[in-house]
């Protein structure tokens, strides 16, 4: 095995690793800094998903094995599909339970207390 492709893969994996871990860190920072549940959810569902997804991709790429890469891609796809669903469910449940938006909010057009508690 020559050194060229090896080095290229290492650089690509490193870029993915650094980007993914920075996204994860910023998502956690956003979780701490945003004022209410709904804004925090933005940080967790976007930056968090991308962060973990990039790290998974890095692991798949590092193996240099098509089966492992496909598995990592499947994991990434699964992650991207489930993150919005869980964010949506949590936001909906919190809003219906009556948790308020932050005072910075300018508008809330979602009607409250729709009495459909067992449909989720």
């Amino acid at each position, binding site marked *: 095995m020559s050194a060229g492709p090896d080095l290229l893969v290492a650089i690509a994996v490193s870029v993915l690793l650094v980007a993914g871990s920075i996204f*994860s860190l910023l998502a956690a920072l956003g979780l701490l800094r945003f004022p209410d549940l709904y804004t925090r959810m933005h940080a*967790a569902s976007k930056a968090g998903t991308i962060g973990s997804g990039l*790290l998974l991709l890095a692991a798949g790429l590092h193996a240099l094995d098509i089966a492992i890469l496909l598995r990592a891609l499947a994991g990434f796809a699964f992650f991207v599909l489930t993150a919005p669903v869980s964010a949506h469910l949590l936001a*909906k449940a919190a809003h219906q339970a009556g948790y308020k938006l932050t005072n910075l909010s300018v*508008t809330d*057009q979602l009607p409250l207390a729709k009495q459909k508690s067992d449909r989720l």
Partner: protein
Amino acid sequence: MSASAILSFSTTFALVALSLGLLLTVARIVRGPTLPDRVLGLDMLVAIAIGFIAVIAIRSGFNLYIDIAIALSLVGFLATVAFARFILARGLSPESAGADSRAAAVPTRGKALAPARRQNKGGRR
């Protein structure tokens, strides 16, 4: 600079950044102030743990870790869904009423009136 040196540096960087992220998330879980905030924190904790496992997979060379990460993401998703249903079934928790003025649930007389009025104005627009 050789390939293994680059990888060693970047995995160390990623582990440090992810550890900091875990700490920040734990801080949010401890601070709350409401149950949905903590559930969101746990969700984020699982996401960071998945990233952590992926980095460990690169560092150790055991590709089996990727399967573990995928399984963990499944479990984390199901846990969040279960928690969301629980929050919906339980309704507003008693601790959120007074714990944080931002998340104040019941606008009692006096102090809480001002924010409530501001929200109404926004809603009419």
